[in-house]
């Protein structure tokens, strides 16, 4: 089944690249950051500008290796998939995390590379590669969630620019973002066909954000209001009315990323269960049902990883992203539930005495994780996509 899209570089060339990568990392990676996860910092919370982190971000950004497979002419690393995998291994070996991330890297960049004009790519991609600009996603509205095409936020044509009015909601990181890629309505007479893809400065006059508190206690998303916001037409990606097509492609990137996030990372559930629950003479976890659940999760996790690999080899981002998202998020949630189940009451701390930071973090992750089956197109919507687009099962209307 597998079909590799590109010829693989020779083994010798890869070995040479491995040495190059290893040397470069040794020369540039601040040892103090060993084991520090920087992948979330681009997404969540205000930027952390400590000197080491800044230095590492700048080094990786200038080298283009934070976005290793993106074209070099736009600031990417220009590496092949095989080289990028080697780089990934070498970073992991050094305990280094990729400081270049966020929605710009995961969703917007790849979409702009596909649909943007040359000027737009030159303007935005290099700054994403260097993590200089934070992007947020202005898709959902109070009455346009699963039914995204129902969005009403309106961009009125004013010749060389639009005037945007309307509300977005659940805008992740909106309070920290510099720019927003938004779906707006440019034509009220057509549902999907009346949507356009606009890039909006978050500090433009008339943009207001109001953070929303989440069940995990944090406020990582916002309501975003646009009141007479002027947006130059040069900030429209694609043609007028092409927003739905572009916006959906971006969602495929989003889904692929959500499904892969933090899978398999963290503590070993079986080791934790051994310690918390105990083992019999043969070293088996004494709670047989728990043992079976852990085994099932690990087995399904491996099958999932194999599927993700297969999808990548068979041609990148596609409707298969729906299958990845459905299953990846299900496994992540099951993992979180298992983790607190193993810890019992100790796994349910909110703050204060008697709990480690890791235990409290696990509770917050468990709660936040409930969002993964909702955002990026809910599990139900993905299931509809699989039924209709892959299986050809028709709508009764």
């Amino acid at each position, binding site marked *: 089944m597998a079909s590799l899209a590109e010829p693989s570089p020779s083994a010798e060339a890869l070995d040479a690249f491995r040495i190059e990568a290893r040397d470069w990392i040794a020369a540039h990676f601040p040892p103090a950051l060993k084991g520090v996860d920087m992948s979330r910092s681009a997404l969540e919370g205000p930027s952390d500008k400590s000197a080491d982190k800044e230095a590492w971000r700048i080094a990786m950004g200038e080298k283009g290796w934070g976005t290793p497979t993106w074209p070099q002419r736009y600031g990417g690393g220009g590496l092949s998939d095989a080289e990028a995998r080697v780089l990934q291994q070498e970073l992991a070996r050094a305990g280094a995390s990729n400081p270049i991330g966020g929605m710009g890297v995961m969703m917007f960049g790849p979409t702009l590379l596909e649909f943007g004009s040359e000027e737009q790519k030159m303007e935005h991609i290099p700054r994403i590669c260097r993590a200089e600009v934070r992007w947020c996603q202005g898709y959902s509205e109070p009455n346009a969630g699963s039914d995204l095409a129902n969005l009403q936020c309106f961009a009125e044509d004013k010749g060389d620019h639009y005037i945007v009015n309307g509300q977005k909601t659940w805008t992740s990181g909106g309070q920290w973002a510099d720019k927003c890629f938004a779906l707006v309505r440019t034509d009220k007479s057509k549902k999907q066909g009346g949507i356009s893809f606009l890039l909006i400065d978050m500090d433009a006059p008339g943009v207001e954000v109001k953070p929303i508190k989440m069940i995990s206690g944090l406020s990582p998303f916002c309501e975003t209001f646009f009141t007479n916001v002027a947006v130059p037409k040069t900030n429209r990606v694609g043609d007028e009315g092409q927003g739905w097509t572009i916006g959906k492609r971006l969602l495929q990137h989003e889904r692929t990323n959500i499904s892969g996030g933090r899978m398999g990372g963290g503590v070993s559930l079986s080791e934790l269960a051994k310690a918390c629950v105990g083992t019999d003479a043969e070293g088996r976890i004494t709670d047989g049902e728990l043992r079976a659940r852990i085994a099932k999760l690990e087995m399904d996790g491996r099958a999932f990883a194999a599927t993700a690999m297969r999808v990548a080899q068979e041609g990148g981002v596609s409707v298969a992203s729906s299958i990845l998202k459905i299953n990846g998020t299900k496994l992540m949630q099951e993992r979180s539930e298992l983790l607190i189940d193993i810890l*019992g009451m100790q796994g349910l701390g909110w703050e204060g005495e008697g709990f480690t930071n890791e235990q409290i973090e696990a509770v917050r992750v468990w709660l936040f994780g409930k969002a993964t089956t909702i955002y990026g197109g809910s599990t139900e919507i993905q299931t509809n996509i699989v039924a209709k687009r892959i299986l050809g099962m028709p709508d009764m209307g």
Partner: protein
Amino acid sequence: MAKLSEEQEMLRDMAQNWVRGESPVGAWRKQRDADTVAGYDSAVYGEMAAMGWTGITVAEAHGGSDFGWMSLGLVVEECAKTLTASPLVACAIAARAIALGGTDEQKAKYLPAIASGELVATIAVDEGPRHDPATITSKVADGKINGTKAFVAEGDSAGLFVVAATDGLYLVEDGAGVTKSRRQMVDHRSHAEVRFDGAAADKLTGGGDGLLDRVLDHARILTAAEMLGMSQQAFDQTLEYLKQRVQFDRILASFQALQHRMADLFGDIELTRSAVEAGLGALDSMGDNGDLGQIAAIAKARANDSLHRMSREMVQLHGGIGMTDEFDAGFYLKRARPLEAAWGNSSFLRDRFARLGGY
């Protein structure tokens, strides 16, 4: 729904009206934000006591109404619907332990105070984060107890503890030799660590060898009633929402995938309701029937599984709103997990059921 007596129907209606009027979820939100150590408002518990709820399962001779567990279950279920915080469940269980195992003197000393709502009492059994009554190490010598109890429900406000020690249950009053440490948990209710360093301990000598198991079975069944109320409310509210939220120019409730989901959840909760009612009924009718262990395991395991599922579905089916603190769904999710872990998670209870069944 079990066939209720006229008095029981009146009690349920009264509870329903009080909860709706005086203790909606908004009251819990205020309590949560107030973030007090006790985890509930003692004025509210006073109101419950004034309505006689704190004495429903206490004998008339000791100041209660002896109205039974089915009746108390109705009240607990209604209170749980809006997450009304109180030590009602903990007190009823502790009082039961005293009624089953105490001397006349012990009963006379404590039961009237519990029945009137003056005294908060609770059972202190587990010593680790997972329910495991087989590994108790707290020890009593010369009438003094030593040991540490973990995550004691309502432990922060309790004036009396029914403590499981290696050789049985003991009554220990709060005071010298008792140290409480608050644990701030995801449900914002009280689950204190309680350390006993030579505190005076008065043994419950009656009730036989199976006393602890019987007390725990009471706790399992009454906790299951609480969880049933939460599941029911989470379900009702979700159904209501699906009937009014419009996407794709139609209400979400018109999508067959969601109709099937809700129909399935409905049936699931109905089975749990039967199991919980069977448990409450068993506590009322058979007293020491040997089957109680299995009946309690069924009730609590079903309540665990139904609430686990429903608390997740409530968030999921509300979409983005379900994830916000401003909306109530998170409260149900956060209260569900500590209750699931209390007195046996489902795998513990299934194991217990199988053992009692001889396999």
